[in-house]
Structures are given as C-alpha cells and as structure tokens.
C-alpha cells in the first residue's frame, strides 16, 4: 500500500449475479401473468435508484454551495452514489417497452383531438427523447463533478475546488428545471386528469431525504467496519442526524401542503388522487407512509443522543429508505393497479435492483481513496465540533 488507503468492500460478483438473476426470473414469470404489475414495479424501483443517484449529487452540490467543511471527509460516499446513475438510466429507458401498461398518453388512439399542444408534448418519441436528454444531462454533471474531485486528489491547485463549486451552482438550477419536468413526465401523467402545483416539489423533497438517508447509512456502515475513522466522529454523525431530521420534516411539510389544500377545497378534479389512496385497500399503506417517513424518524431523532449514536442513525436511515420506496410505490401503483400487491415478484425485483446498486456503489468506493485529498475544507472537517 502506497500511503493511500483503499478499501476492499466490493460486492461479491457471484452474489450480485444471483440477485440479478432472481429479478430476471421474476420479470419473466410476471410479464406472462400480469404485465402491469411488473412494469409498475420496474418504474418504482427504477425511480428509486434514480433518486438515490440524484440525492447523492444534490448532497454534494448543497455541501459545496454552503461552503460546508464538516462533510468534506465523507464526500466520496456521496460521489459513489452517483455511480448508480447509469444503472438507473437503463432502468428508466427500459420503461419504453412497458409504456402501454403504465401511461395513458402511450395509448395509440388520440382521444382528445382538441388538446393539440398536450398531445404533441406527450407524443411517445418526444417523451422518451426528453427522458434520454435529462438522463444524459445529469450524467454529464456527475462526470464533471467526479472528475474535478479526482483531479483534486493529485493536485493541490485550488482551481479544482472552485470548479466543483461552479458545477454545483449550475447543477442545482439545471436540476430544478429538468427534474420538475421529469417528475411530471414519468409520475404525474400516470393519472392524466390530475394536476397539483406541489407535485414536483413533493417528489424533489423525497429525493433529498433519500440522498441524506443513504449517505448516512453508508457512512455509518463504513465507520462500523473501521473505515473513515479519522474523518468521522460523533460530531459529524450529529450533523448527518440533523440533516435527516430536517429533511424528513421538510418532506412532511410538503406532504401536508399538498394534502391539506386538496382536502380543503375538495374539488372533484383534484380530490380523486387522494380518494383513491385513502380508499379501501390503499389506506393502510397511505397511513404507514406518513408514519415511516416522518413521525417515527422525527420522534427517534429529536434527542441529541440519538443523532450521535451510530446504531440509532443506522436503523433510522434504514427505516427512511424503506419509507422512500413506499412513498414512490404510493405515487405509482394506485394509478396502475386495482389493489396493492407487494409479494415475491416485487421483492425479487427489488433485490435485483438492490444488488446492482450495491455493486455500483461498492466498486465506485473501491476505485478511489475513501477520503478526498487536498480539499481546502479537510482541515476544518477534522477539527469539526458541534
């Protein structure tokens, strides 16, 4: 070892293949029986993985833009999460083949001749061209940020840091526009007659929570295995805990802002979205969603000691990551399915996607030193106090 500490943590290739194979079998079996169920699951899991990658990118961008020093030592973890972006891109583009099971706009017959502009905007080739463009755009930013960070390891020139800050500033603006349009294209149009001006913000708040929860989980796991020992102590965990508490609460705030206004005005064209979700079958999941994504994490993370406890943070992060899946599932499934179905098929596909994410993140972590070098904030990060 030449001074630079690298970690052997790559997911075993046999295990990854086995997990992917389980998913492929589930897809093959399910497509014959109930294609809508399989495509629903592929959309939910694909969007979940995409949120993970984008959450990592947003985490990095926010740290750079706020000039945060405490997180400099854990930036590689968030950067490794960007490695799932190509995986997510393939998953999302694969939805092209399942568009008929998911989206009303993919149906061949142009039902509303009057809606000329809308039917041009939701012409199938245009929607998927947009999808490819957005995914490409985000991958370009991920590549730029990763490259600047790698260059910084070998050169102390402050230009690399300034570049990362500049990329972050452009990225948050580009992301806000592109992700709003993307969430409308891929999720909102599942119910073509419904709109909500809060929708893009709601989906975005979930991406933020997922990014923070995933960074927290990976940092705690690495720390438990003796990595990051120099750059992460209770003070850094405390900040991760605060971010998790704040962003789950932000999600709940947006959740309530959307639900409250629709419930209050009770207009037929708006209320349908929630009538389905609070109706028979979906109501238990709808209630659990709010508990798992906000109330339970909020109560658990409120005391100072739990934000500084690695095991508490780990389990809250796991809970929130499960909650993220449920939240996306509740955005998609009530539009495409008659009743909730979470069984062996969904589990196998989730396991396969989980295996791919594990492989992508662990090999990205292994490829480069686990802690950045020459970062202007690294010294302050080591000295960090609450």
């Amino acid at each position, binding site marked *: 070892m030449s001074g630079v500490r690298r970690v052997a943590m790559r997911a075993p290739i046999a295990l990854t293949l086995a997990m992917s194979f389980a998913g492929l079998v589930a897809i093959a079996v399910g497509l014959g029986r109930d294609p809508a169920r399989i495509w629903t699951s592929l959309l939910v899991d694909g969007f979940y993985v995409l949120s993970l990658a984008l959450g990592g990118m947003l985490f990095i961008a926010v740290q750079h833009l706020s000039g945060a020093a405490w997180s400099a030592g854990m930036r590689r973890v968030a950067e490794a999460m960007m490695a799932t972006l190509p995986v997510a891109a393939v998953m999302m583009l694969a939805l092209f083949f399942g568009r008929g099971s998911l989206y009303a706009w993919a149906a061949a017959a142009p039902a509303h001749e009057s809606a000329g502009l809308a039917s041009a905007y939701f012409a199938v080739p245009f929607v998927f061209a947009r999808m490819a463009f957005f995914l490409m755009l985000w991958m370009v930013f991920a590549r730029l940020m990763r490259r600047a960070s790698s260059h910084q390891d070998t050169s102390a020139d402050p230009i690399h840091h300034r570049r990362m800050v500049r990329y972050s500033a452009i990225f948050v603006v580009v992301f806000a526009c592109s992700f709003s349009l993307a969430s409308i294209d891929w999720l909102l149009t599942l119910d073509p007659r419904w709109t909500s001006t809060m929708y893009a913000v709601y989906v975005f708040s979930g991406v933020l929570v997922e990014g923070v929860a995933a960074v927290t989980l990976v940092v705690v796991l690495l720390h438990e295995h003796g990595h990051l020992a120099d750059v992460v102590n209770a003070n850094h965990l405390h900040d991760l805990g605060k971010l998790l508490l704040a962003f789950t609460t932000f999600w709940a705030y947006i959740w*309530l802002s959307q*639900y409250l206004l629709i*419930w*209050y005005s*009770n207009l037929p064209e708006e209320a349908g979205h929630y009538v389905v979700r609070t109706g028979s079958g979906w109501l238990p999941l709808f209630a659990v969603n709010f508990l798992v994504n906000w109330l339970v994490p909020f109560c658990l993370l409120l005391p*100072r000691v739990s934000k500084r406890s690695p095991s508490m943070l780990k389990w809250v992060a796991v809970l929130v990551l499960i909650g993220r899946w449920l939240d996306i599932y509740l955005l998609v499934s009530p539009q495409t399915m008659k009743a909730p179905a979470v069984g062996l098929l969904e589990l196998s596909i989730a396991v396969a996607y989980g295996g791919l994410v594990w492989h992508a993140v662990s090999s990205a972590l292994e490829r480069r030193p686990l802690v950045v070098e020459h970062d202007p904030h690294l010294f302050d990060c080591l000295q960090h*106090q609450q």
Partner: protein
Amino acid sequence: MSENAFAPEFLVAMFDDQRRLVGAVNAVRARGLRVHDVYAPYPVHRLDEAMGIRRSRLPLATLAGGVLGLVSALAFELYVSVYDWPLNVGGKPDNSMLAFIPVAFELTILSAGLATVAALLLRCRLFPTIRPRVVGRSVTDDQFALVLRWRHTAFDPQVERLLYEHGARDVSRKAIER
C-alpha cells in the same frame, strides 16, 4: 474601579491567545482548583469541556415551549370551533383537525423560539438596566481572562507561577467591576 466591600475578590490571569488559555484552564483544574469563570471575545472550542461545564439545559426550555405552544394552539382551536362557536365552513365537520395544523405548527415554533430566548436571558441575568460584570475592556477585543476566586488560591503560592508558566501575560488580584 469602584471597590465594593462585599464584592468577592478574584485572581485574574490575562492571556493573549486561546490555546494558552485552554492549557492553563486544564492545568488549574488538574491542580484541583475550581475555575470561577473565563472571559473571551468569542466562543472558544474545547473550553467548555476544559472548564468542566455540564451541557446546557436550554433545549429543555425549547421543548417545553414547543409542547406548550402545540397543545395550547390545538386546545384553543378545538374549543372555539367545536364547543364555543361552531360554524359550518364548506360542509366540513366542526372538528376538522387537519385545518388546525398550520396554526398549531406556527405557534409551536413561535413559542419554542420565544421560550428559548427568554430562558437564555433569564439564566444569563441579561435584564435591562443590569450593569455588566467584565474584568476589563480588553476581553471584548483581543484578550482572554481566566478568573479564579482569591479565597481558593490564597494559600497556594504556586498558582501564580503555574499561570505564568502556561503563558499568562499578567496575573493580578482584583475585584470585578459591577
């Protein structure tokens, strides 16, 4: 300096930088002496642990204020719109708890914030008309002062030397201005 007959007397050591100050605090405490107080122009990292100050209980005031705000807001809204003066608004039930949430949320935050500030001001004795107690004007600029009670140190001739050894610029016995 107004000499008050009842004013406690102090041994005041002045320092030029925070590292020497923290070192001296550690040394004094290692000798078994109690640090009366430290004056610094800005918050110094690791000073609280060095002085052996226990953690602030201010968050308890915040929590109490927050819970009080939440409960009182919900109770008031329930009382008004269910018991005292029920109104039919858009056919909603009288007890439309969801509509009460925004007001309850705002009042929770308002009273938690006010409770925190009030508790801080009361505990630090920061009232209007109060005369500040400062060892000297320089601790509001670029100097650090370590203050010990004279009666704790009177029979230990080594203390002054100890303070000088840890980088004190000046050690003197004085009363703190009121």
